[in-house]
C-alpha cells in the first residue's frame, strides 16, 4: 500500500494522520450516538435521549473542523494520487457521518416524545436490532477505512440489504399496528420515522464504505448498491 511509507516531509504525514484521526474520533462519537439513541428508545430513558441530542453538537463541530483542515491540507500540500483520495474521502465521510449523527439526534428527539405515550409492544426490540446492525456496519466501515480493506468495505455494502429488509418488515408491522388500533397511529408514525431514519443511516454507512473502496482502488464501486426497500413500489393490499 503506497501510503504506508512515509513522506520525506514528515509534517505532511502528520497532517494526514491528523485528519484521519479526526474522522475516527467522529466515527466513534457517531457509533456511540446510534447505540445510545437505540438504548434510550428501548429503555424509555429520557435522560439518555437528552444526552444524545446534546452530543450532536460535538459531531457537527468536528465536521466543520475536518472540512477546514482538509481545505488547509489541499491548499498547503497540493496532495496527489492516494493522498488526494485520502483528503477527498475524509471530506465525504465526514458529511455522511454528520447526517448519521443528525438521524441519531432525530431518533432521540422522537424518543422523548414517545416516552410520553404508552409503549407499543414488540417494536422496540426490532428497532434496536436494526440500530445495532447499522452500528456494526459503521464500525466495520471505519475499520475498513483505517485498514484500507476494500473487501471489508464491499461486505458492508452488501449488508445494507439486511437493513433494508428489516425496514420492510417493520413498515408492515407498523401498518398492522395502526390498522389494529387507531390510538397507536401517533406513536407508530414516530416509530416509523425512526425506522426510516435508521434505514437512511444504513445508506449513509454504505456511502462511507463506497468511499473506502474509492480510496483503496481509485474507483467507485459499480452501482450495484442493493436496493432492498420496495415499499414504495409494493403497496400492501389495504383490505388485508
Amino acid at each position, binding site marked *: 500500500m503506497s501510503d504506508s511509507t512515509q*513522506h*520525506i*516531509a*514528515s*509534517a*505532511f504525514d*502528520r*497532517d494526514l*494522520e*491528523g485528519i*484521519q*484521526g*479526526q*474522522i*475516527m*474520533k467522529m466515527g*466513534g462519537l457517531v457509533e456511540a450516538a446510534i447505540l445510545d439513541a437505540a438504548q434510550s428508545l428501548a429503555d424509555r430513558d429520557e435522560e439518555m435521549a437528552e444526552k444524545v441530542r446534546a452530543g450532536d453538537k460535538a459531531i457537527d463541530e468536528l465536521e466543520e473542523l475536518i472540512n477546514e*483542515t482538509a*481545505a*488547509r491540507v489541499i*491548499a*498547503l*500540500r*497540493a496532495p496527489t494520487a492516494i493522498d488526494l483520495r485520502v483528503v477527498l474521502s475524509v471530506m465525504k465521510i465526514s458529511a455522511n457521518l454528520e447526517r448519521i449523527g443528525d438521524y441519531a439526534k432525530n431518533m432521540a428527539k422522537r424518543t422523548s416524545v414517545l416516552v410520553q405515550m404508552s409503549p407499543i409492544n414488540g417494536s422496540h426490540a426490532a428497532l434496536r436490532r436494526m440500530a445495532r446492525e447499522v452500528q456494526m456496519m459503521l464500525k466495520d466501515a471505519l475499520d475498513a477505512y*483505517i485498514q484500507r480493506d476494500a473487501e471489508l468495505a464491499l461486505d458492508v455494502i452488501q449488508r445494507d440489504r439486511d437493513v433494508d429488509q428489516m425496514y420492510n418488515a417493520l413498515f408492515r408491522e407498523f401498518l398492522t399496528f395502526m390498522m389494529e388500533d387507531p390510538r397507536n397511529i401517533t406513536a407508530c408514525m414516530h416509530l416509523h420515522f425512526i425506522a426510516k431514519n435508521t434505514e437512511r443511516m444504513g445508506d449513509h454507512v454504505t456511502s462511507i464504505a463506497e468511499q473506502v473502496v474509492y480510496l483503496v482502488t481509485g474507483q467507485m464501486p459499480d452501482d450495484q448498491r442493493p436496493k432492498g426497500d420496495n415499499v414504495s413500489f409494493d403497496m400492501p393490499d389495504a383490505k388485508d
Partner: protein
Amino acid sequence: MYDAPNLETRVTQTNTKITARGVQVFYGEKQALQDVNVDILDNTVTAFIGPSGCGKSTFLRCLNRMNDTIASARVEGEILLDGENIYDKRVDPVQLRAKVGMVFQKPNPFPKSIYDNVAYGPKIHGLTRSKAELDQIVEESLRKAALWKEVKDRLTEAGTGLSGGQQQRLCIARAIATAPEVLLMDEPCSALDPIATAQVEELIDELRASFSVVIVTHSMQQAARVSQKTAFFHLGNLVEYGDTSHIFTNPSDPRTESYITGRIG
C-alpha cells in the same frame, strides 16, 4: 477511538527576532524597496514570495548586510536584530554575519574538504579552543543538516564532489556551524531535483526548532509547505504578511490572491 494529534497549523506565541521599520533600498537612483515593515519571529520559518524583481531577495540581503558589497546600494530605515539596529555605525558586518547566516541559490561549497568547509566559520570567528571542540561542532552541524551519515567516512574529500542536494546540505551545515540566530535562505532549492528539494525542506522544518529561518522562494507551493508565516512582495512593496495557512486559504489583499491563484505574474 483515535486521538487527533496536534496539527501544525497555529504558530505558538514566540518572540520577535527581527524588526524592520520603514526599510527602503535604492540601487543608484532606482528604488528597489519601499517602506517595508515586518516582524520576523523566532523559531519560525518565514517565507518571502512574489514575482521576479519584486524585491524579496533585496530585502533578504539587507538582513545580513550583504547589500554592502554592492557599491551602488543604499539602505534606509532600521532593521533591529534583538533590538539592536544592524545598520548602526558601530556594527561590524563581519560579526553580524556570524549571527545571521546565509545559504545561496546555487550550492557553493568551498573547494576544500568537507571538514574544512564546515570548520571554516567557527575557526575564523574563534568559536573553538581545541581541535576536539572543532570536530564536535563539525559533526553536530553535519548531523543537523542530515548529512553526517552520508559523509562521515569521507570528511577529507572535496566538498565539490558531492551531489547537488548534498552540496546544498553541506552549505547549510556550513552556515549553521557558526551557531547563528537567524538563517537566511535565498531560493535554496531552485537548483535541486524534487527529492533533494523535499529533503532540504524537511531539514528546514527541523532547523526551526533551533533558530529563525527566512526563506525566499519563487515557488508558492514551497512557501506553503515549509513556512508558518508568509510575506508577499510586489513591485518593491510588502503587500501582505500573515500566517501561511491564512494567506493560502483566504488572503486579505486581492493582489495576494491574484498572485497565489496564478492570475498575475
